[in-house]
């Protein structure tokens, strides 16, 4: 039995006490597996025989549009963070550092595809045309969702990790059945987003088994941002996550998640394949959570700032800017225009957030069931009476 077939890792689990420390130190960002890259950290184009062809139709305008999206959503993220600091949001989940993974993949989807995000996919939401202010409703505590998922085929955020992954597979199974009944239907696929941490949940395993069995048109898109709150990636997997796909019987690709061109190309490839009935793909976008896990988190407790600095040098926006400038595709005027657009988005989101009305408690009783339910009706009536009791009392006192 050739030892070469076994995964090797510096993460030594036999040293129970030293292992976590070692694991954390390993998250320095050097991929130990082949990784698709079409634009390196210096902003130079790279060749790739398989995925290069999926990027040839990207002209200057397309690349500038990617940049615009990434800059907009970063600005949006900053505004939401500021709103949280000012007490307007209970919590915010930052995406900074993951713009390329989200914009690149989101822009590869077609309107008829259906997206199942986790909770950090603000960039994907932007590409789907979700009203960005609606993303904040959940975090302001005025809604448990915030938008109509059926309007943009972008499902609500799911906070229970990995729970949405089987949903994406089931939806994809529905697409397969619809296509059987109506051959003229536009081919479609689903995308399930989840994190490196969530990849450990049993739901992900079961999803992959189902998807493989039925060749479901689903793309599993894992953003490996190296951390699950304070737990380093190596605790979740000793091998690149993309390698797991082989065990289920479908392709797994690790892509440079900070390279928007490569992410777009790989996702486009995977979606085309899925829509054509060739089954699922697992994409592992190798990226980094530059900010805290959420505004409630303090990463200095568990990771070194040197690691953050190393990743800052691989910033997805910077490298595309370098490329656009060096190729003469964009100038200062373009970047000024993008900054202005970002400002406008931020101003819009701020205004919309401050204007968000607090819901009425009666709304909490609505939609619990699709059909009339006596218990809910009884409690609603009780509440009305109870509230009225106060009004009466106040009236008496007045």
């Amino acid at each position, binding site marked *: 039995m050739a030892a070469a077939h076994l995964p090797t890792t510096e993460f030594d689990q036999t040293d*129970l006490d030293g292992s976590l420390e070692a694991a954390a130190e390993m998250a320095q960002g050097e991929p130990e597996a082949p990784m698709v890259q079409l634009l390196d950290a210096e902003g130079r184009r790279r060749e790739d025989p398989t995925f290069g062809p999926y990027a040839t139709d990207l002209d200057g305008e397309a690349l500038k549009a990617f940049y615009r999206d990434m800059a907009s959503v970063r600005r949006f993220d900053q505004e939401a963070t500021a709103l949280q600091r000012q007490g307007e949001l209970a919590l915010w989940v930052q995406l900074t550092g993951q713009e390329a993974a989200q914009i690149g993949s989101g822009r590869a989807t077609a309107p008829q595809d259906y997206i199942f995000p986790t909770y950090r996919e603000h960039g994907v939401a932007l590409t789907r045309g979700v009203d960005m202010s609606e993303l904040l409703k*959940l975090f302001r505590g005025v809604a*448990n969702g915030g938008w109509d998922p059926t309007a943009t085929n972008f499902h609500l955020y799911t*906070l229970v990790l990995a729970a949405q992954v089987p949903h994406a597979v089931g939806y994809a199974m529905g697409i397969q059945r619809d296509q059987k009944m109506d051959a003229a239907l536009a081919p479609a696929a689903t995308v399930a987003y989840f994190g490196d941490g969530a990849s450990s*949940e049993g739901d992900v395993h079961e999803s992959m088994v189902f998807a493989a069995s039925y060749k479901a048109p689903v793309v599993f898109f894992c953003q490996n941002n190296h951390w699950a709150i304070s737990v380093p990636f190596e*605790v979740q997997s000793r091998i690149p996550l993309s390698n797991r796909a082989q065990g289920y019987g479908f392709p797994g690709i690790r892509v440079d998640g900070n390279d928007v061109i490569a992410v777009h190309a790989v996702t486009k490839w995977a979606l085309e394949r899925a829509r054509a009935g060739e089954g699922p793909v697992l994409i592992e976008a190798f990226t980094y959570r530059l900010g805290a896990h959420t505004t409630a988190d303090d990463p200095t407790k*568990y990771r070194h700032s040197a690691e953050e600095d190393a990743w800052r040098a691989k910033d997805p926006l910077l490298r595309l800017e370098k490329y656009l400038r060096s190729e003469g595709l964009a100038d200062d005027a373009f970047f000024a225009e993008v900054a202005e657009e970002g400002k406008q988005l931020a101003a819009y989101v701020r205004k919309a957030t401050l204007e968000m009305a607090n*819901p009425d408690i009666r709304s*909490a009783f609505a939609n619990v069931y699709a059909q009339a339910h006596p218990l809910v009706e009884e409690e609603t009536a009780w509440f009305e009476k109870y509230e009225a009791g106060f009004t009466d009392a106040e009236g008496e006192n007045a």
Partner: protein
Amino acid sequence: MSTLTLSKAINSGLRRAMDDDPKVVLLGEDIGKLGGVFRVTDGLQKDFGAHRVIDTPLAEAGIIGTAVGLAYRGYRPVCEIQFDGFIYPGFDQIVSQVAKLHYRTRGAVKMPITIRVPFGGGIGAVEHHSESPEAYFAHTAGLRVISCSNPQDAHLMIRQAIACDDPVLFFEPKRRYWTKADVDESLALDSFPMGSARIAAAGTDATLVAYGPLVQTALDAATAAADEGISLEVIDLRSLSPIDFDTVEASVRRTGRLVVTHEAQQSFGIGAEIAASITERCFYHLEAAPERVTGFDVPYPPAKLEEHYLPDLDRILDAVDRVMGRPNSLSGQGL
């Protein structure tokens, strides 16, 4: 005696249990280096090592399932579930395995597992972070379920839970984590039996039963009621399975009136169990039908609505008025 927050009191209880018994191991998400999202396990990995305070992969079924294996091997695992709403991926392991192995092996294998769960609302959190799932577990034979309300009890009860040979669900009132009080860490472990309730305030007119986060609310209600000349006896249940019905019954026999409050939804809940059992035990001592003051039977609403959802002083006092036959919101006489 030291002044501790409730979270620090649990921390010191865990530390003591780990000092006393090398077989106590902690498992959970972010409990090591970070010390848990509520810092309940702060410093424990540093002091006891990563083999005893284990930062697990992100998988609740894995946490509980491996705890079963560790218990099988003679360990006393203490699992942390990061938030109430994230216990469900581990639910199958808890109700089908943890709860039943002692029974199925006819006592040959013990499951001395403690499952710590920060629970309840009132902190303005996003969804799945404010739930009260205790009744699911109290409904399951083979599990003990307890909930602390103050630092002193928290310290002793976490140690009692770990020392118990049965699996214990330990519900921590997250909105009270920062409550401070004097804690005597030298008190004997059996200062009170693990399943026993506590009279938190003595009174004569009505019995108000609470646990976990609402004990403080109930005490506040008793103070407010006293201003109106009503004397409430507040009982802190501490244990939800088993329930110390003797203590509740003795109180109700004296007061003749019962109000139970919890954050969890009303239907099929702890309040229903208490109302039914007390009615069976001392029907002829009741001057009024028992009242329940609980969350509504809807999913936990968005944070901006939780003040309406959660039982508060007004709702508790209104129920007290009802059992006392005083004007109340539903009597049509105004308040």
